């Protein structure tokens, strides 16, 4: 646990403006030269209910939430009150304070809003005693009163930021700049007044005995603060996507919204439709007609998409779907992350499936692999799925702006022009042999688009002849089926030979022990591996993104190179470990699992502990929320 980091937690009721406040504060920290990482915890409720956002900021790279945190700004849940100022849901107002104390580190700071959190309630918490025990520094401030005096009650968030800045000895300039970007007129003026008043009052009223200060850092290049959803949306735009259809479902809605908002300016089309079956079917229709199209959902909605997904496979219609996992089964925990849909995404839909599945592990990978997904889908006429989760979707990190400075790739892949169609094979009646026997480089037979001269054919979800007529001819069936399935081999070959690896390696190359993970658990594992090596262990890590076609070669080499390995994932049934065993047919006795499925993502310390219990054979029980699955024979 490094000391030179600030982990600031702002807590309140959802709907109290915690999101925008924390977003701005994170940006201010980023602009001051720090690396930042945000983690959002929220209940499935629009207003009220305890929620918090954590910002981890340091002068070095941060890729995950930390272990606990060291600064609590507790606002009080204003939606726990009704307009008559009476408590709405019992004692909820105090929750932003009471619910957050367990994870606060020793020596941490607490600022709470006296204006909302009553003295008697605080007395019930034994706050004084606990503060003494943990060396916490407690600052009760009337943030609400201060905000009311200079503007409106809701501006108490700003007062809280002012107090934070004072206590951490930060300059206000970046915060002011961001405020002027976001607002204007009276609102801006009141907010600035509140910010300064809070800042000055704090400085005047208190002597700071704590030594937590904002860390220092600097960036060499310009940074942007982006979420995984932004990265996926931008990867899609650069991949040439100009059609999206969807039906809202948390957390997929973010990608849907970002693209919808950008499309009018860049000439794309977005459709919110009646359900997810329609959403995916529209993407199939748009792609068939010649636009790079995308759709997506979260588990429950993706379940409905399995029909059109199969249709896209059978008709060889290129398409990108995104699946933003949340905790299941069924509606599960709508606002909590889990990596529980891997098997579902790999195998859903009838028949022998031929689809590509990528699981990006961080923001850069999300952008990169979404671009790649479009490229592969159109080059190979196959649906490609990006599987990620609520965590990656919502977490914000700073990324070098230059990272995005690349040419877009709008090409339609294996699609013929009218000129090329003239040369292509046709049957006796002039129908284009779109699924022909001749032209199938890399198992792909190039397609035409409706409207093109000389390209008429029938696309059908039934098995079909070269021109698309329904066919149950056994020879044709074997030919078409084999070709569709073997596309995955061609794609694997291309990914191995022509593209940079989608897998991420970290730790010490010649280490004895390995930790394997996938998707958004990557960040916490990277940090855990780093800590383990610093404390004298010999560990290396691999984060796998290529789920189908599977990164067979790379995972084999990794597993062969270590004595034992632990597979870390956020689900209860070790789905990824199962995939490795299924794909490689061995290593069952070399792998143990560290599983977490309580709705909260891994903290690095839990992985360190898991390693110690699992691989270093320390004789102790792991934390209650984590499950260990021992190795099994092949």
């Amino acid at each position: 646990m490094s000391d030179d980091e600030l982990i600031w937690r702002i807590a309140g009721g959802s709907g109290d403006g915690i999101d925008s406040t924390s977003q701005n504060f994170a940006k201010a920290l980023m602009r001051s030269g720090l690396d930042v990482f945000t983690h959002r915890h929220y209940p499935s409720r629009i207003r009220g209910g305890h929620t918090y956002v954590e910002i981890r900021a340091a002068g070095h790279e941060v890729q995950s939430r930390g272990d606990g945190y060291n600064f609590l700004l507790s606002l009080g849940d204003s939606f726990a009150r009704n307009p008559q100022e009476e408590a709405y849901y019992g004692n909820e107002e105090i929750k932003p304070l009471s619910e957050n104390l367990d994870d606060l580190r020793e020596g941490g700071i607490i600022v709470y809003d006296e204006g909302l959190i009553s003295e008697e309630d605080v007395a019930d918490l034994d706050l004084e005693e606990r503060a003494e025990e943990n060396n916490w520094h407690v600052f009760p401030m009337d943030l609400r009163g201060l905000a009311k005096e200079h503007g409106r009650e809701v501006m108490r968030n700003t007062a809280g930021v002012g107090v934070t800045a004072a206590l951490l000895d930060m300059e206000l300039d970046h915060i002011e700049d961001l405020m002027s970007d976001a607002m204007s007129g009276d609102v801006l003026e009141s907010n600035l007044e509140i910010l300064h008043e809070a800042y000055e009052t704090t400085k005047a009223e208190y002597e700071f005995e704590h030594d937590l200060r904002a860390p220092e850092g600097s960036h060499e290049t310009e940074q942007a603060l982006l979420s995984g959803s932004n990265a996926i949306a931008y990867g899609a735009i650069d991949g040439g996507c100009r059609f999206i259809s969807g039906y809202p479902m948390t957390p997929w809605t973010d990608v849907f919204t970002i693209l919808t908002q950008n499309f009018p300016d860049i000439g794309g089309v977005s459709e919110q439709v009646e359900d997810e079956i329609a959403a995916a079917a529209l993407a199939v229709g748009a792609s068939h007609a010649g636009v790079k199209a995308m759709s997506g959902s979260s588990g429950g909605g993706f379940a409905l998409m399995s029909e059109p997904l199969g249709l896209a496979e059978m008709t060889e219609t290129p398409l990108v779907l995104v699946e933003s996992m949340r905790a299941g089964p069924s509606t599960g925990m709508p606002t909590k992350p889990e990596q529980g849909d891997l098997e579902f995404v790999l195998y859903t839909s009838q028949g022998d499936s031929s689809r590509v599945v990528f699981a990006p592990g961080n923001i850069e990978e999300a952008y990169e692999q979404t671009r790649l997904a479009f490229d592969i889908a159109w080059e190979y006429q196959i649906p490609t799925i990006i599987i990620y989760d609520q965590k990656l979707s919502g977490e914000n990190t700073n990324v070098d702006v230059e990272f995005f400075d690349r040419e877009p790739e709008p090409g339609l892949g294996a699609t013929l022009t009218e000129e090329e169609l003239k040369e292509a094979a046709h049957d006796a009646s002039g129908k284009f042999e779109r699924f022909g026997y001749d032209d199938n480089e890399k198992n792909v037979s190039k397609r035409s688009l409706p409207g093109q001269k000389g390209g008429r054919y029938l696309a059908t979800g039934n098995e079909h002849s070269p021109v698309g007529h329904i066919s149950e001819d056994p020879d044709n069936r074997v030919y078409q089926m084999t070709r569709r399935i073997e596309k995955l081999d061609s794609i694997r070959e291309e990914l191995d030979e022509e593209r940079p690896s989608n897998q991420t390696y970290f730790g010490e190359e010649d280490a004895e022990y390995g930790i394997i993970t996938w998707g958004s658990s990557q960040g916490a594992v990277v940090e855990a591996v780093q800590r383990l090596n610093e404390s004298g262990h010999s560990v290396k890590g691999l984060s796998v993104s290529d789920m189908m076609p599977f990164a067979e070669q790379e995972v084999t080499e990794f597993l062969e190179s270590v004595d034992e390995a632990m597979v870390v994932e956020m689900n209860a049934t070790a789905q990824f470990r199962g995939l490795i065993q299924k794909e490689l047919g061995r290593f069952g006795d070399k792998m143990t699992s560290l599983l977490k499925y309580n709705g909260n993502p891994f903290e690095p310390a839990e992985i360190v502990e898991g390693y110690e219990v699992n691989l270093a054979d320390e004789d102790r029980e792991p934390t209650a929320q984590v499950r260990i699955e021992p190795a099994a024979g092949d």
Partner: protein
Amino acid sequence: MSAFNAIGEEREIDRDEFTPGVEPQPTWCPGCGDFGVLKSLKQALPEVGKTPEEVLTVTGIGCSGKLNSYLDTYGFHTIHGRSLPVARAAKLANPELEVIAAGGDGDGYGIGGNHWIHTARENHDITYIVFNNEIFGLTKGQTSPTSPKGHKSKTQPSGSAKTPLRPLSMSLNAGASYIARTAAVNPNQAKEIIAEAIEHDGFAHVDFLTQCPTWNKDARQYVPYIDVQESDDYDFDVTDRREAAEMMYETEDVLNEGTVLTGRYYVDEDRPSYQEEKRAVGELPDQPVAERYFDDDAEWERSYDLLDRHT
């Protein structure tokens, strides 16, 4: 290159162009009403001046779904009930395509019911032909949403307890701007109506009565079909919503009793199509999106240009 837009070519279009020269021969049963739809489409398409390449027919599953296997346009034979969402998107992607969706009563009014209501509500500029044989044909004669009450089938052996759906009224209430009913046994009217539906800007729903002699022995292929527009007894204004609604109501009541009325029930030329409305609010570009991919001069914005708000 000019990949799209075969439109504009001046020449006579022959209905034979819409007939595949080689296999497959239709697998429909002798006497099936589906032949009537195929025939009227083949007659109507040249009449509205479409070449086979400008037309995309999108079908669902069922005997009706085979329509585009026997029609030489671009075709997409989709999955059960999903022809409409696929068709809608194709039209949004390339508004220059003539998009015709088709399916059965089970396919369109049953499993695809949700899509039907919303496509009508939004008034997408596509034509939708429903082969209404009041039965599931391909799966061997089960009761469909339009089967009469009391209809006996293997899945409703004691006679269906369900009141049949009123497709015309449903479409009107949902918002379709062109609604007609025709029948395979009225070939001249059918051709005219299909041509009109194709030319209509907006969602044109044609409930096409197709007899299924194999499974629906009670089919009323021999009862008199009266063209409402031709008969003085049924004088009403097809552009008036209320009058149309009343006519539909009466007709849909007697449909199962003997006389069958066909013809145009509702025509609203004023309601803009969804495509127009979407373009008006700035959500649909003027140039077909699909064309941009072949336009060498097209500018492709980069995500890099969008980063300002994140820095």
